[in-house]
């Protein structure tokens, strides 16, 4: 009888034993000799239309497909913009109201127009796509398909013909117009309308056109506007209404990728979206790779774009890059890999185990696997464990251009406002909440306690003694040391709270923290936070909520204390300082200043700083701003997370670049080495299975004897 169960176990195993190669190889054996990069993704991309996408997990794919005019240098630090499709870096030209050219250091209020003229390379072509395919008469094959023909296609592979064409300046202009297309939801449409001349007016005209002909294709060529225009085949200009030096960074983001009008016509045909054929699903770009399989439920596959021009690997980097082998491919045409397979992995444990088996070339590091991978020495130095070293796995670390902070709602009656009482209370809490301990307990040491809003790597950030927050830290023995709790209690006393009670009313001080982190996993975190506030005899009530309700509270300004974070869009201090800029308050303006902090001097300096070039003067203004913010303490500055990544020995040209997303083209894989190590690491282990089968057989013996006895007894 137990034979059946044995068969059910054995058949699949026997079937598998018939296969060649490692039994646990998740990829087809036919791929083993191919130059393929393997990685995983956790969250399916929502948008692959570059004008609508604003998410890091989407940029993993978009970065390899689309090419904005600029990119970040792969190796140089601090982060530096360099041309991608542009022939050179564009220089802004400033004009006053009379059209007179002004110098770059002219006061921002005198500038009424800024022109960026961008010249693109003439040798760039789009990936093969049916939208470009023409018949013998030169007509586009798939621009006016019949409903029957559309019903017959389900993916782009169903189109027999594809073609390409050269990238032109008009493709960039077309994309700028798409930002305000009434049927496209671009998250930066509002922001760009503030800066790009005539974009808001274009939005109104397109909205009217859409209302007049709902669902019809809107030919954006018919809608000229002064904010963007093609000067010739390879030159276009963007005109801003005011000085905005950070605009140059936006030119490296995918919102400003070129979009061929042919693709828009192709995807806009009635019935096409009913077949799930949309630009959001099938991107069309000029980058080194093209998306050949979009199955976000299983895997995403990028393959080399046959029309790619072959950008050259950088020939210079920063100090130490040559020694670490990062310039070994200098001057070689990229990309180095033919295909990239990203498999969906929802859980961290399987992902990590497959990395250890060699089936993923790189891996991040989550808390579950931290101890297995990394050891922290007594001096705080981070090193790989023996197990990792035995596999020749490499570790890379980098401080992210992000900040996780705890903020006070400055509109709150107790913790907010500009009074000395509230300021002292905030400063006392800033001392009491020990972020060094937090990083150690909850982030396995993967974080750098923040001294202000600017993370390392962003201009304006200061290291060492000059960089500490003097309201929270002292400089002792060459390092920042958090002030003692006694100092915090003293500040609290000065604020009018004695032993956790309001001196005026005698009422105990109760503070409320709103957190979007709900669920049992957050309990330890909350307990720790309560403990920090208890150091000051303050009773902290935590209102854990889902992210929707949390956002609602922030928009209404009903939270008192909250936790949040920010990832840099671009490596400029403006992108962090604007989180404390008054007119950018969450309440009323729906901006990103979640604390609703408002300090006229800070705001004045912000307006000066944002238009300044990096240099000593700008550093001085930033220092002044940070001093104001530290004094007012609208945030507990929290910490800047450290990014840890691991990669195998066969994976080359790995260098953390937290601003660039188009880094796949730089990667090189040593396929023979990978195959050799995979085979070594994944030999099937049959002994326990054989033992298990034997144990099962032995355990059946008493049952068989008993069965025999029973049968014999019933016969008698």
């Amino acid at each position, binding site marked *: 009888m137990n034979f059946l*169960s044995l068969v059910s176990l054995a058949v699949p*195993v026997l079937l598998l034993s018939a296969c060649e190669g490692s*039994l646990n190889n998740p990829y087809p054996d036919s791929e083993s000799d191919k130059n393929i990069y393997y990685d995983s993704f956790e969250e399916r991309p929502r948008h692959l239309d570059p004008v609508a996408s604003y998410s890091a997990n989407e940029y993993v794919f978009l970065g390899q497909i689309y090419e904005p005019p600029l990119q970040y240098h792969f190796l140089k630090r601090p982060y530096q913009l360099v041309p991608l499709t542009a022939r050179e870096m564009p220089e802004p030209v400033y004009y006053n109201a009379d059209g007179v050219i002004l110098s770059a250091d002219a006061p921002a209020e005198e500038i009424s127009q800024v022109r960026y003229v961008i010249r693109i390379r003439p040798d760039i072509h789009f990936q093969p796509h049916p939208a470009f395919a023409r018949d013998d008469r030169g007509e586009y094959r798939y621009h006016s398909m019949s409903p029957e023909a559309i019903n017959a296609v389900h993916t782009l592979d169903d189109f027999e013909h594809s073609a390409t064409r050269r990238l032109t300046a008009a493709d960039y202009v077309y994309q700028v117009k798409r930002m305000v297309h*009434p049927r496209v939801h671009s998250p930066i449409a509002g922001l760009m309308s503030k800066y790009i001349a005539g974009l808001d007016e274009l939005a109104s005209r397109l909205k009217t056109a859409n209302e007049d002909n709902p669902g019809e294709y809107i030919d954006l060529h018919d809608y000229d506007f002064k904010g963007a225009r093609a000067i010739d085949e390879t030159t276009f200009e963007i005109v801003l209404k005011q000085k905005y030096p950070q605009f140059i960074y936006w030119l490296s983001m995918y919102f400003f990728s070129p979009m061929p009008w042919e693709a828009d016509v192709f995807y806009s045909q009635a019935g096409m979206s009913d077949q799930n054929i949309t630009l959001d699903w099938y991107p069309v770009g000029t980058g080194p790779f093209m998306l050949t399989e979009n199955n976000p439920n299983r895997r995403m596959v990028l393959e080399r774009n046959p029309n790619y021009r072959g950008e050259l690997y950088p020939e210079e980097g920063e100090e130490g890059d040559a020694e670490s082998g990062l310039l070994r491919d200098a001057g070689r045409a990229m990309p180095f890999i033919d295909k990239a397979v990203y498999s969906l992995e929802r*859980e961290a*444990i399987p992902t990590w*185990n497959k990395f250890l088996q060699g089936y993923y070339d790189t891996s991040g590091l989550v808390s579950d696997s931290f101890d297995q991978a990394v050891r922290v020495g007594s001096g705080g130095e981070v090193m790989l464990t023996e197990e990792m070293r035995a596999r020749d796995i490499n570790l890379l670390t980098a401080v992210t251009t992000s900040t996780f902070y705890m903020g006070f709602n400055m509109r709150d009656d107790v913790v907010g406002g500009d009074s000395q009482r509230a300021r002292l209370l905030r400063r006392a809490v800033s001392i009491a909440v020990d972020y060094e301990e937090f990083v150690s307990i909850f982030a396995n040491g993967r974080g750098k306690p923040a001294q202000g809003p600017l993370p390392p790597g962003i201009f304006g950030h200061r290291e060492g003694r000059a960089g500490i927050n003097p309201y929270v830290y002292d400089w002792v023995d060459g390092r920042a040391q958090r002030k003692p709790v006694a100092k915090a209690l003293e500040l609290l006393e000065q604020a009018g709270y004695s032993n956790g009670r309001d001196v005026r009313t005698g009422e105990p001080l109760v503070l409320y923290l709103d957190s979007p982190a709900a669920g049992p996993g957050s309990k330890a975190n909350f307990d720790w936070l309560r403990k920090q506030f208890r150091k000051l005899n303050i009773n902290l009530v935590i209102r854990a909520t889902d992210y929707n309700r949390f956002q609602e509270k922030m928009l209404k300004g009903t939270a008192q204390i909250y936790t949040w974070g920010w990832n840099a869009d671009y490596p400029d201090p403006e992108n962090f300082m604007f989180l404390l800029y008054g007119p950018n308050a969450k309440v009323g303006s729906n901006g990103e200043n979640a604390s609703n902090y408002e300090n006229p001097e800070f705001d004045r300096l912000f307006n000066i700083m944002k238009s300044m070039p990096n240099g000593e003067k700008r550093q001085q203004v930033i220092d002044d701003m940070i001093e104001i913010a530290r004094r007012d303490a609208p945030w507990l500055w929290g910490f800047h997370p450290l990014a840890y990544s691991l990669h195998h020995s066969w994976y080359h040209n790995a260098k953390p670049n937290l601003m660039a997303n188009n880094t796949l083209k730089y990667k090189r894989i040593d396929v023979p080495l990978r195959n050799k190590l995979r085979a070594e690491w994944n*030999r099937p282990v049959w002994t326990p299975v054989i033992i298990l089968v034997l144990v099962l057989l032995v355990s059946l013996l008493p049952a068989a004897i008993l069965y025999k006895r029973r049968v014999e007894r019933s016969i008698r």
Partner: protein
Amino acid sequence: MISYIIRRMLYAIPILIGVNVITFVLFFVVNTPDDIARMQLGQKRVTPEAIEKWKADHGYDKPVLWNSDAAAAGKITETIFFENSVRLFVFDFGRSDSGRDISYDISQRMWPSLAITVPSLIIGLLVYITFALTLAFFRATYIDTWGVVLCVVMMSISSMFYIIGGQYLVGKLLHLVPISGYDTGTEAIKFLVLPVLVGLVGSIGSSTRWYRTIFLEEMGKDFVRTARAKGLSETVVLYRHVLRNGLIPILTGVVVILPMLFIGSLITESFFAIPGLGSYTIDAINNQDFAIVRSMVFLGSVLYILGLLLTDISYTIVDPRIRLS
């Protein structure tokens, strides 16, 4: 019987309306249309205008359940609930909030779910019945006692343990199958072995106990005593009489879950990265995609009702004394 089936189908309509209303209310208590828009637009730099535009484009700019500004029937029909619910009854699931055709996605994703659930069901039935019959045969012996103890122990362990333990032991340590993933065609087999095996082991305790109880009950009945009195061997009694009669409640119990096999398994699919309908539902919940959540709940309800109907019908097939009226 036909009139019975028609009556049952008509009964299903108010049930489905009720399920739809409850799903709708629960979803919109937690997520407002603004939340859904924010989720789709991203978290950064989203303006109120962008939210309003997205809502208008996706039909979320209307009142949720009651439109007091509309006239007459419009108070009900010009609402998010009505516009999203009515077409479900003709199985038009519409488009997801991210713009995908839900019916197409369901048709694509039900196959990976079935690839796990069908073998799990068939192999599971064989294994569980075998074990249960063995325990019943050796009733009141140490084999039965220890078998039941083992069953209780196994059913007390969380399914998560079996999943993670299975991946660790079979995939990571023994290197016999891939830890997770999925492929099409025959390549899928190597990915299915472990989830099927884990599903099998995870349910062996509870199912074997249940089936053992059924068989023991049958073994105490008069017809078994008669069979023994006729001098039939214990093996014949077991296979010809006990097994056949015990299969009636087992099979009718199986019929009720048959339609639900399409829906897949939420946890298994998630851990093994199987692109089935279980993970489709989980994704939709995480992404606050109401259109998919509503469709999957509706589909689940329909399949459950269908399962109950099939069970009733199967009773009449296996037991001719039962008549549906």
